[in-house]
């Protein structure tokens, strides 16, 4: 545990001094550092505690696969849990806190779990906490959650913004190491649109830290020259700090760009992260290969790290992991670490190669490496151990759509599957272990047209490996999955207990289930499990690879669509007028509708009651612009409507409106509304607000898929017209003042008239004499831009009649008083007959739903049909949802007779009343039933009556 800053070299800016805090203690680092490299350079190896045993853990990797060095980054609302210190770019003022320890990282009481580890073997949750059953929820689970867990989430709202964006390219290059750069340059030079994405803060991949020689120069300057060229090309997009996290159908890739994670607070107007959807004609996976740990006792002691990570820290960040190191390997590549460390003046205490001179049995040390014991009995002092168990191509993305990787004996690794030409692996991600092969594979993949350019000359290092999976002689724990504390012994145990299938062993031992998803440990686990099961690695196979490659924040998925912007808001053309009138709005679907217009001191009920009374006494104005309006034209428009509606429209006179009822093909009522005939070949349909979009889709289906031979055209005009209901005995007198050159009376404008008029001296308008309130009423439609102006003019015209604006609450009261069915009754279970509209169904034509509506069950007299309902105690409030029973019956499913579907306070009748669905209801008017309200746990008596509670003779309508 004696990491230090090497005197010179590396890609850090030593002229900058960045101050940061880890667990409250101040440290310094440089621009270009990661949190992990700055901590190592400061001599800190202990960065976290393990999940189960709370063992002290240090950083093991230098990249995205890090299982140990997880920290809570930042504080307050910007706090982010489980952040990999290896991926966090250092900035001035950075604050990080270790997690999963109590009270502190140095002294963790729960490390006692490690002493009791014999009971914490794989599957221990299932075995230990089974009994008594009642203990689980109250005792075991809270305890386990306290002891085992990672970072904590901030409970404050995230103050930053997130974005989504689409991108398109001919070639997406994932990874910017030697092969990725070659692919990008080759494709870019041929004019292709190229996106080069890399999860790192800088492009260059392994060339940022490996000593290579290419084209007569060092690897780094070779990379920088290419990156500069790519940056200058208009057809190339460079995306550093962007993780391609998933591969999806259609060769679409998900990407997460960490736009401003490397600063404390994003600059104004910039998002923290951006979620990309990249549509790539072709893509290449140049993600490189992951070095594997070796499995031996104490392979988790802080200071034990991957050999490549050790040279990554030293070469790129000038951060030495120790003063005297041991190297443990089963392959050639760790020789680089030996050479590089020597160059940095670091002592090599021992080089242990399983192919030559034995194994490390145990690492000694608690919070840092002190010494190692070898299989030959020798013993070396050292303060860090570099290990290399071979290389695994990072195949994840290529397996996201179900293909499985293929085991290769020569390099002892899973190779990416062949998933077709649109997505190919290149470089070490495809198992190429020589630099020249990597460069060449990139050039070949980047050649989208023309001749393949020559491959730059480079120096290769021969690669050879002899698989070695587990030092069984180890006496201390040998870890497979660091984060979840799965040890080598857990896998044979899983096999013995019947969980030998790779997917079962994963769940039984939790190997590969942590936030790192087994990036380092899975291949070791599969090999050990295969041996225990007496199978080959190839037979054992891998677990399933799924997106996301690394964790993606919820914020990025949500993008800008949060809070007020969760869904779009739709406003009517009368919105400003409604605000002037003091409207309280209600969300109806996406629409904002005026719900009631309270005067000082009024609650919703007082306001809506006053609106009803004033409308029924004089005149009221209601915004009904949200009703769906569909313009239907064409020679066969009438014939088409006859198919859509259960009643007939081809016979409707020009200039008249008719109530229409639409069924679904299964015979259930779908929607209703008033449809007018404006000309011989021109109708205007209205739909309910709720079903407007569904009706439009239905019309499109019926025409395009069922009857395309009909000459009919349709388009939504919902938004073109501001529509107002003007209702009440003074509605005619009010409107008369606006209308140009037309005397409104029963001759010119009879009930159900629909006509084009002009108002206010030439403004186009449509006038319909229709009523939902039961009053003498009109609906007036004007082009939307004039809506507010016309509404104000009507209010002025109606002033002498004490006109009121009324909202959907008053509208609902009036429709229930009149027994008009609406959403509560058109609820997807009712037939036309149930609604009392059975006679509307034509018997002279085919229409959607006709046949199915004739089924026995659909015409059964015992069906529940719409009735009116009132409490016997007229002072009582009733609510919808209550079930209807015969007076003598107990509440049960068998005794259920129906339920209340709509209720309202009736200002006119001075009581609560409603509409209900009641079995054989039309024959039961006058009967007193029991209403059982299970939700509120009470029951009461109610009288069944005709649904039309108010003005049953419809005198007001025709007044």
């Amino acid at each position: 545990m004696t990491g230090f800053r090497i005197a010179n070299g590396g890609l850090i800016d030593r002229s900058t001094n960045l101050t940061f805090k880890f667990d409250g203690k101040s440290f310094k680092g440089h621009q270009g550092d990661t949190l992990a490299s700055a901590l190592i350079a400061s001599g800190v190896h202990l960065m976290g505690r393990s999940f189960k045993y709370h063992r002290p853990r240090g950083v093991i990797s230098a990249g995205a696969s890090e299982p140990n060095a997880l920290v809570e980054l930042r504080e307050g609302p910007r706090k982010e849990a489980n952040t990999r210190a290896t991926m966090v770019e250092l900035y001035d003022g950075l604050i990080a806190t270790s997690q999963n320890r109590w009270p502190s990282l140095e002294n963790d009481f729960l490390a006692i779990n490690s002493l009791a580890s014999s009971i914490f073997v794989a599957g221990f949750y299932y075995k230990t906490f089974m009994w008594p059953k009642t203990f689980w929820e109250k005792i075991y689970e809270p305890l386990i959650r306290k002891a085992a867990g990672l970072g904590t989430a901030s409970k404050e709202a995230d103050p930053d913004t997130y974005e989504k964006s689409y991108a398109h390219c001919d070639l997406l290059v994932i990874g910017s190491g030697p092969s990725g750069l070659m692919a990008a340059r080759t494709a870019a030079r041929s004019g292709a649109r190229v996106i080069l994405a890399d999860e790192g803060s800088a492009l260059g991949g392994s060339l940022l830290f490996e000593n290579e020689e290419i084209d007569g120069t060092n690897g780094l300057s070779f990379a920088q020259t290419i990156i500069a060229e790519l940056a200058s090309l208009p057809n190339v997009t460079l995306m550093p700090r962007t993780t391609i996290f998933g591969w999806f159908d259609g060769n679409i890739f998900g990407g997460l760009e960490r736009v401003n994670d490397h600063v404390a607070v994003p600059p104004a107007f910039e998002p923290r992260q951006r979620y990309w959807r990249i549509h790539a004609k072709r893509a290449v996976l140049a993600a490189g290969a992951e070095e594997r740990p070796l499995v031996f006792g104490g392979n988790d002691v802080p200071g034990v790290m991957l050999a490549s990570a050790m040279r990554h820290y030293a070469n790129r960040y000038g951060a030495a992991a120790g003063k005297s190191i041991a190297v443990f390997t089963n392959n050639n590549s760790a020789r680089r670490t030996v050479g590089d460390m020597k160059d940095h003046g670091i002592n090599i205490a021992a080089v242990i190669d399983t192919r030559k001179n034995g194994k490390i049995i145990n690492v000694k040390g608690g919070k840092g490496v002190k010494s190692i014991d070898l299989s030959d009995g020798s013993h070396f002092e050292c303060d860090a151990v570099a290990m290399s168990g071979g290389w695994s191509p990072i195949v994840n993305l290529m397996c996201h759509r179900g293909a499985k990787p293929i085991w290769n004996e020569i390099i002892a690794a899973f190779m990416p599957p062949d998933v077709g030409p649109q997505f190919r692996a290149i470089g070490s991600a495809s198992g190429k272990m020589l630099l020249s092969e990597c460069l060449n594979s990139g050039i070949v993949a980047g050649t989208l047209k023309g001749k393949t350019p020559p491959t730059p000359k480079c120096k290769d290092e021969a690669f050879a490996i002899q698989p070695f999976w587990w030092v069984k002689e180890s006496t201390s724990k040998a870890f497979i999955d660091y984060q979840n504390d799965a040890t080598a012994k857990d896998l044979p145990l899983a096999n013995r207990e019947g969980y030998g299938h790779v997917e079962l062993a994963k769940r039984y031992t939790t190997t590969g289930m942590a936030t790192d998803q087994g990036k380092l440990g899975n291949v070791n686990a599969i090999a050990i499990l295969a041996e225990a099961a007496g199978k080959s690695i190839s037979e054992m196979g891998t677990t399933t690879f799924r997106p996301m490659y690394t964790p993606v924040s919820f914020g990025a998925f949500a993008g800008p669509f949060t809070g007020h912007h969760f869904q779009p808001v739709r406003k009517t053309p009368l919105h400003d007028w409604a605000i002037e009138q003091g409207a309280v709005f209600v969300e109806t679907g996406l629409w904002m509708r005026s719900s009631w217009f309270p005067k000082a001191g009024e609650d919703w009920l007082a306001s809506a009651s006053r609106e009803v009374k004033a409308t029924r006494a004089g005149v009221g104005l209601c915004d009904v612009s949200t009703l769906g309006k569909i313009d239907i034209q064409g020679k066969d428009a009438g014939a088409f409507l006859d198919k859509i509606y259960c009643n007939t429209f081809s016979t409707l006179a020009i200039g008249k409106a008719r109530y229409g009822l639409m069924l679904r093909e299964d015979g259930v009522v779908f929607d209703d509304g008033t449809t007018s005939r404006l000309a011989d070949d021109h109708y205007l349909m209205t739909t309910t607000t709720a079903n407007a979009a569904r009706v439009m889709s239905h019309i499109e289906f019926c025409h395009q898929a069922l009857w395309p031979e009909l000459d009919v055209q349709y388009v939504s005009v919902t938004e073109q017209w501001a529509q107002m209901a003007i209702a009440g005995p003074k509605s005619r007198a009010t409107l008369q003042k606006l209308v140009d050159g037309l005397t409104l009376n029963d001759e010119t404008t009879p009930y159900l008239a629909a006509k084009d008029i002009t108002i206010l001296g030439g403004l186009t308008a449509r006038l319909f004499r229709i009523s939902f309130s039961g009053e003498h009423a009109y609906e007036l439609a004007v082009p939307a831009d004039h809506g507010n102006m016309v509404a104000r003019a009507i209010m002025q015209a109606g002033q002498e009649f004490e006109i009121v604006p009324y909202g959907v609450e008053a509208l609902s009261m009036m429709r229930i008083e009149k027994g008009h069915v609406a959403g509560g009754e058109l609820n997807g279970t009712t037939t036309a007959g149930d609604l009392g509209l059975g006679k509307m169904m034509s018997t002279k034509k085919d229409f959607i739903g006709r046949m199915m509506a004739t089924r026995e069950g659909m015409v059964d007299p015992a069906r529940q049909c719409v009735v009116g309902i009132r409490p016997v105690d007229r002072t009582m409030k009733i609510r919808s949802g209550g079930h209807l029973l015969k007076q003598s019956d107990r509440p049960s499913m068998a005794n259920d007779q129906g339920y209340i579907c709509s209720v309202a306070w009736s200002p006119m009748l001075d009581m609560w009343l409603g509409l209900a669905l009641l079995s054989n209801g039309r024959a039961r008017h006058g009967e007193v039933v029991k209403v059982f309200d299970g939700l509120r746990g009470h029951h009461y008596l109610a009288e069944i009556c005709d649904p039309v509670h108010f003005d049953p003779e419809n005198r007001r309508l025709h007044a």
Partner: protein
Amino acid sequence: MHRVSSLQTIAIQGRFGADKGAPGVTLSVVHPLAIAMVIARNGKSKALKDALASLKSVNVLWAGPDQYYVQSAAKSEAALYTELKTKLANIASVTDQSHGRITIRISGPKARAVLAKGTPIDLYTDEFPVGKSALTQMAHVGVHITRTGKDEFTLSVFRGFSESFWEWLTSQAAEFGYQVS
């Protein structure tokens, strides 16, 4: 009569968002505008195309199979509707949509980058040349988009969504800085 756009009090002129020199995009509301939807009657696809090609001083924009928006900033909505009704009699159905849709123009070097945050359509010039229109969705709102120049597009949405859409569009343009004119 004076038409009042749904963005009249929302789209306030000025310079907004990040200040990085010249604005990344310029936004403006194209209003008033006369718009008619014309849809070919059965078997009249070609006749409609020909008839539309002969129209003068209007913009004809593709708006779906055998459907077009015919637009004019100079003509009144009544004049355009009447003219089309007459000229396209028995060829197409004509519906006035002048008030039902709000058209926003977006131009500038970052126009494509802003729109990429909303539409899955590839707006690269080779794929989406000047004059091309498409129907898509941005920020959960149906949008009719037309390229009117190298770095210039018009977006047309249902009037009722215009305020919500404007809020989204301006928030996405903010990082580049935008001018409302």
